[in-house]
């Protein structure tokens, strides 16, 4: 793949505007790497961060450093904690596997909203798996991953979040960013936003692998994650405690996903693929209890429940398939 090609188009689309592209950053290393790469390639990105109330010191440190050292603007959106907490509790009670769906959906919707506000034509998803990934969109099991249907759901689908929250929550998804298929389609027709996966600029998952990673970290003064999901206390809990209890070993899952992403093999393994130490997990556990206002027994009971497929809840998948089809026909996606 010619890595310069998308950047030329991006630069051209951004001429006469404040920003060339919008980059979603979590505070982790991968998105930092994508942002730094774009800045060094001469782009003027607007960084976008969604604060769900679980940021770690590592995340805010990295966000600060990225702003100071790369000189790019950062837009943050802070989720109303009470509302977000209610959604998280609903997902816990529902015992579905993908507890991270709300965050991904909110980032997705927010990115489109902010792109529309600043008339930005390119959205680069940090390094998260593609929002429009076909394998998840069609609700097929991830190939080769050996996981059941519905373990990770299609990010743009807000209907599912609402369905889960309607059944298990007490509030509605109100002030949190959200976007329906039709809003998205309208937005695409007007704005013609192009979405690309940050890792594409490095040819796949490479953005965390290169030999110069350590020098990249040192140069900017970033803090490197040690465990999977270190940029958010909730992701730490999700990967290290929730998923294993539901029968998913995240280390294996990630490795399989890498295989599935048609990586040329062999490759050095991406670095944050460890399980945290037990005492770390205990601290994390207590923090989750406090944040979600649960007793240890309640949370343990939620973790004991058998996993439920997302497919048990209403989905807007069909609308999305249709909207995406129309967008493709119109040549705006």
């Amino acid at each position, binding site marked *: 793949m010619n890595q310069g090609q998308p950047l030329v188009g991006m630069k051209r689309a951004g001429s006469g505007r404040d920003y060339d592209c919008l980059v979603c950053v979590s505070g982790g290393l991968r998105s930092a790497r994508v942002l730094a790469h774009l800045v060094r390639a001469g782009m003027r990105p607007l960084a976008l*961060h969604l*604060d769900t*109330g*679980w*940021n*770690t*010191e590592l995340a*805010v*440190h990295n*966000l*600060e450093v990225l*702003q100071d050292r790369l000189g790019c*603007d*950062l*837009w*943050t959106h*802070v989720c*109303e*904690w*009470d509302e977000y907490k209610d959604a998280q509790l609903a997902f816990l009670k529902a015992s579905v596997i993908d507890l991270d769906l709300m965050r991904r959906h909110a980032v997705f919707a927010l990115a489109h909203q902010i792109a529309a506000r600043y008339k930005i034509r390119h959205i680069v998803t940090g390094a998260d798996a593609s929002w429009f990934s076909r394998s998840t969109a069609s609700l097929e099991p991830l190939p080769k991953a050996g996981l059941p249907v519905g373990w990770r759901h299609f990010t743009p689908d807000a209907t599912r979040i609402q369905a889960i929250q309607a059944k298990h929550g007490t509030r509605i998804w109100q002030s949190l960013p959200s976007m329906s298929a039709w809003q998205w389609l309208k937005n695409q027709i007007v704005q013609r936003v192009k979405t690309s996966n940050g890792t594409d600029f490095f040819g796949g998952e490479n953005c965390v692998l290169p030999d110069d990673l350590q020098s990249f970290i040192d140069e900017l003064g970033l803090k490197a994650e040690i465990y999977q999901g270190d940029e958010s*206390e909730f992701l730490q809990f999700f990967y290290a405690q929730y998923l294993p209890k539901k029968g998913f070993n995240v280390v294996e899952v990630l490795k399989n996903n890498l295989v599935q992403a048609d990586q040329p093999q062999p490759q050095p393994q991406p670095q944050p693929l460890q399980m945290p130490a037990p005492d770390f997990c205990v601290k994390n556990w207590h*923090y989750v209890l*406090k*944040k979600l206002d649960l007793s240890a027994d309640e949370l343990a009971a939620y973790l004991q429940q058998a996993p439920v497929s997302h497919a048990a809840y209403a989905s807007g998948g069909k609308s999305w398939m249709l909207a995406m089809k129309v967008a493709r026909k119109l040549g705006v996606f």
Partner: protein
Amino acid sequence: MWQQIRLIPCLLLAGRRWVKTTKFTRARYIGDPINAVRIYAAKQVKELMVLDITASQRRTGIDFKLIQQLLEECGTNVALCYGGHIKRRADVTALLQMGVKKIAINACSEDDIALISEIADRYGSQVVMAIMDIKLTKGGDYRVWNFQANAHTSLSPMAWGARLQKAGAGEIFLSSMDRDGTREGYDYTLIEATAAAVDIPVIAYGGANRLSDCVRVIKDTGAAAAAACTLFVYKGYLDAVVPNYPSASKISEIFQS
């Protein structure tokens, strides 16, 4: 010398919501206070102020459960100062027993003076921080603002500061309402005049934009400490919410240069 430099992040709460005001109005939601305190504690902040600006409007008053949760995040390394609807000695006793290190009392009336004396007699002046909200009058004079009545008092900050000192306050938190959230720099005239009028430490608040403002207020005006909200929360042109605090080495570097 730099070890004693006190830079204090100040968290404004509206119930369980962490907010940031501009000139004491237009509260913008900026997150969950528990997570904020956890981040500041990880950033090795020594002192933290938490001011509940809606406690006096709530029927339930002080949110002890939240304070307990914040204290857990503070651990042993961060000294927490709490302010907001402190009207009874029993509340002060409870807060101190929980582990709050200082109690901030908004002082603009004789009742507040009486409470300050009472607490200072019982627990010592080191736990009492008196808050003076100062706002310029139309005539251009500094006057103490009565937060609850939403009106000016006739008290001048210098005379009232001396009065608070006499009553037993250990420190004065001098907040400039006209500068709050504006990033225009501290009100150096006000701070210098007040610090000269009292012998107890004065903590400057309102308007800090850069760390150099903190340096200036401590070095030039006689303030003992610099407190700030905006400086330690907002970053950049778009006011991104990124809790930040300089490392000890950075503080020493800035103050020595």
